[in-house]
């Protein structure tokens, strides 16, 4: 049953990260994409046993390095965003072909990615705006999109110009087709790619709005969970 939380406003960024963290099963192997998804790490409970993967060849990555005496900046130890990070006990290092074999081979339980658009059928667009003067840069986004067992997207539900980012069909170039499982936004959490045709969208919970209000603002085939 769709949970409508109208006793509060939409989620802030940190709150969205906390909701995503809540839904990651303990003991999961997880990759957090560059940008907003990185915040999810701060909300994983102590003892969750979640192991973070970074595409540049490491399992059990720790928090960002602060540069303090116990926590020096090491230029040889960074995350996918090239930010200096730390190593947790039980970590391992491996080269790039092995790291992406791990991703492509379906061994990661969860990845969390940002998005420009997600389609009702689970298509993801997060690498290219399609603008003719934009320099294309994909990194590891396509590998993660098709590789992780569960692909979670974290984004604002509407763009700055008010247009919805959860759409019937992506207008931006795709990162992956039919790959997204859930979409976490400031206004609601959705399961995409549901129903007999795989193009339905379930509203799991709302924040500061109602199912009916969302249905009025979105042009996708919503159903209540």
């Amino acid at each position, binding site marked *: 049953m769709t949970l409508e939380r109208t006793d509060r406003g939409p989620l802030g960024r940190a709150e969205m990260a906390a909701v995503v963290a809540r839904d990651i099963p303990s*003991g999961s192997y997880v990759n957090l994409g560059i940008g907003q998804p990185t915040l999810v790490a701060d909300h994983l409970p102590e003892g969750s046993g979640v192991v973070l993967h970074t595409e540049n060849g490491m*399992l*059990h990555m720790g928090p960002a390095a602060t540069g303090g005496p116990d926590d020096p900046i090491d230029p040889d130890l960074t995350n996918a965003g090239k930010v200096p990070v730390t190593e947790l*006990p*039980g970590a*391992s290092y*491996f080269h790039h072909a092995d790291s992406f074999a791990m991703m*492509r081979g379906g*061994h990661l339980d969860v990845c969390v990615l940002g998005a420009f658009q997600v389609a009702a059928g689970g298509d993801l667009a997060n690498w290219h705006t399609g603008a003719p003067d934009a320099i294309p840069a994909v990194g590891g986004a396509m590998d993660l999109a098709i*590789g992780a067992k569960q692909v979670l997207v974290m984004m604002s539900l509407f763009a700055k110009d008010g247009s919805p980012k959860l759409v019937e069909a992506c207008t931006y170039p795709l990162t992956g087709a039919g790959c997204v499982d859930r979409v976490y936004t400031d206004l609601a959490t959705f399961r995409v790619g549901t129903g007999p045709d795989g193009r339905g969208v379930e509203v799991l919970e709302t924040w500061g709005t109602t199912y009916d209000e969302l249905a009025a603002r979105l042009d996708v085939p919503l159903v209540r969970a």
Partner: protein
Amino acid sequence: MSATTFHETHDEAVAGVEDGSTVLIGGFGMAGMPVDLVDALIRQGASDLVVVSNNAGNGDTGLAALLAAGRVRRMVCSFPRQSDSWVFDGLYRSGRIELEVVPQGTLAERMRAAGAGIGAFFCPTAVGTPLAEGKETREIEGRTYVLEHPIRGDYALIGAHVADAMGNLVYRKTARNFGPVMAAAARTTIAQVSRVVPVGGLDPEHVVTPGIYVDRVVAAPGSGPAAGDLQQQEQA
């Protein structure tokens, strides 16, 4: 979720293997062969198995005993015929087991492809030989290749040297062989190790099989999680 579990006995470690499963069994001859796990699999009773292993058993123990017990429908390997492979030889000659012979490197690469999410690959090995018969070929930049498909395991039984409490593994010398490849190619990977050390007991630079690929670990009888001279353990 995916966290590695640690088991007291080999029998517990192989619980649940279903009839008809594809089981990858590590080792090159006896080096790296998970003998105790194979013995436990015999006791567990699963039958109609497809077994993927470099050889088809030596003497009367381990994989040979599994074959002798009539549990294996089909053997996929590179080199079944050895001086002490009389169990397999007898089954094969009497038509009681199927055999797929795969060049050793193609066997390894097909399992590597399974673990790495590769759908198929063009391989130069065996072109023009009976082992490529019936397979799609293609000329690429003047060389002929044969199309090979992944080999996935429902289970992998492997032998390693030391595990830490995250399931990270290191191996010893040429006993490493198929272990890392099979660990990534199977849905459920079961490792028998000499010793389990606490988290932090293996240098992250030296881990060969990360714990993400290891579902169940059982230490040899009498050993178990223990601190101690880890450097020595790792290199022993």
